[in-house]
């Protein structure tokens, strides 16, 4: 409505067709641009800006503290733990997910038992479309140290019950396993799409060369899907940096801070301790990590990756 009016206005004012075209282009992009700036660019600047101030969420005029918040982070043992937890969680989750996803994708892409392949593919992907809330709640129940199904089975078989989420030694691993279970299907799907782009004739040439299956996998299949592997590894790493839902629902950062990860730390500091300044500082740290990883992907992508 108001856009249409502007259209007519421009027609009479601008005169030349090209100018009108340009203006229309700008106008069409305008709403998206405004929203993107409001919810992407501005928050990043604000994040940095707020990290230089103290005070709580409701403080009217927070005090400028410069790099004090960052210093507090560096000196905080908790934050060090948080970084370690995030790193360990990322390595385990991404490592497990990638290895399993590659193996399963190649396995389900084969010619044997193709009907089972289809069924397996459908089931592997299902966890991906439901909420992490559901998955976390479900596994909270499955991994329950007293009545959980897994431990009941273990006890029935004569083993000791596993501590899963109740011990600081095993909680992070347990959360990681849940993420792997949920995310596997997505990565299997993407790898299978990449596998299907490999022409059959390349495999036939390998057959003619009398290539044993493992050698085919490592020397032909893997290099040919390496662009995809690299890309999804980065996606997985960044996703792992962002973990929150499962931790909030399953462990609340504990026990004993063992599952306190970066985003949870930010959330905690902002809402539980009411120190948005420090939370924003931690947010900047997260931003830096995301930028570094994205840049690494870009660099490595140029060098190592094989294209057809």
């Amino acid at each position, binding site marked *: 409505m108001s856009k249409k009016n502007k259209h007519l206005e421009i027609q009479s004012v601008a005169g030349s067709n090209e100018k009108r075209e340009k203006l229309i282009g700008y106008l069409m992009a305008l709403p998206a641009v405004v929203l993107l700036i409001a919810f992407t660019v501005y928050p990043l600047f604000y994040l940095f800006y707020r990290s230089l101030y103290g005070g709580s969420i409701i403080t009217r005029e927070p005090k400028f503290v410069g790099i004090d918040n960052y210093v507090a982070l560096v000196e905080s043992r908790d934050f060090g733990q948080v970084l370690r937890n995030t790193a360990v969680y990322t390595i385990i989750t991404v490592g497990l997910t990638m290895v399993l996803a590659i193996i399963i994708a190649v396995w389900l892409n084969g010619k044997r038992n193709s009907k089972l392949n289809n069924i397996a593919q459908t089931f592997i992907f299902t966890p991906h479309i439901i909420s992490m809330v559901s998955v976390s709640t479900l596994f909270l129940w499955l991994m329950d140290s007293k009545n959980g199904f897994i431990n009941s089975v273990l006890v029935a078989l004569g083993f000791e019950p596993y501590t899963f989420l109740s011990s600081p030694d095993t909680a992070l691993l347990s959360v990681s396993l849940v993420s792997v279970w949920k995310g596997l299907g997505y990565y299997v799907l993407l790898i299978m799409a990449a596998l299907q782009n490999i*022409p059959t*004739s*390349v495999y*036939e*040439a*390998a*057959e*003619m*060369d*009398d*290539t*044993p299956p493992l*050698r085919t996998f490592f*020397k*032909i299949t893997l*290099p*040919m899907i*390496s662009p995809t592997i690299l890309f999804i590894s980065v996606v997985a790493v960044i996703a792992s940096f962002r973990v929150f839902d499962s931790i909030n629902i399953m462990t609340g950062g504990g026990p004993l801070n063992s599952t306190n990860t970066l985003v949870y730390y930010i959330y905690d500091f902002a809402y539980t301790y009411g120190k948005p300044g420090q939370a924003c500082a931690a947010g900047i740290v997260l931003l830096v990590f995301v930028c570094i990883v994205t840049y690494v992907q870009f660099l490595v992508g140029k060098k190592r990756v*094989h*294209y*057809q």
Partner: protein
Amino acid sequence: MSSISLKNVTKAYGDVVVIEDLDLEIKSGSFTVLVGPSGCGKSTTLRMITGLEKVTKGDIFIDGVRVNDIAPGKRDISMVFQNYALYPTMTVRDNIEFGLINQKIPKEERNRRINEVCNIVGLTEYLHRMPANLSGGQRQRVALARSMVKEPKVFMMDEPLSNLDAKLRAAMRVELINMHKKMGTTFVYVTHDQVEAMSMATDIVLMDEGKIIQQSSPSELYHNPNCIYTAQFVGSPQTNVIDGHLSNEVKLGFRPERVRMYEIENGINILAKIATREMLGAEIIYSLETQYGTIMAKSDKDLPTDTELKVGVEYSHMYLFGADTYRIPFTEELKANITDVFGGDKS
């Protein structure tokens, strides 16, 4: 150097039978070309010999050994694919070396073979390039090199030249013929192009709808086609086939290049009018209107359109085909009948 034998081979995909009860003998040391239109079964036959396609029924023998259950890589044959199927993530050298490593050939021997093959094929400067940085012709040569370096008993090739431009194709044809002459290995080659087949083969196997129509040397195929299909498959323009106007549905066939643009002795002479002409340079292709239909002629005589003339075909250049489209003998009686119908000089 090896002979290949297919006995009673049938290939079916589910309920669809594409090849039924095929018998084929490929002589050791020959350059055998399987030729035919799309879907005639030539590629399928090739792939069954290599083992990439499983045989539904029947047996395949290489050098007298039944290979049905032997893996493709262990049959001592190599294959050049239509789209080359190079390993895209390896250098040219690694592509060529790949199969040798699988056979556990020691490094020195590998290097020797690779150098030798690269000299023959002309790839020495490109050894460290990646397939993506090669032209079509270069990739084709890598595919060739990869198959040569294994020193197999048989070379299988599935339309290896069809993705190249015309000039390159002609050059590669010559190279392949020379290769065969030098190496003496059995070549089994699939193409849909009859020119390729005729120029390269020692034996042509003409196929259609999963069956072998005729198997013989190129010269024999040209001069002595066993049926209308064969007669019309080889040669351009197509062999003329007209109704014999005799009682038993006999058809008369003769090649355009055998049509004389003047009256002859010892053959038939037909009244014709030049409808169109196509200048090829040394020769001209005419389409002639006659009372028996349109006939094509190829001649070096230059005559303008609309010329009316008598054209002649010698008896020795005629093919007679029966109602089942197969050749029937050219008896004296038929000769007399033909002359009666078409008019000509029996002297």
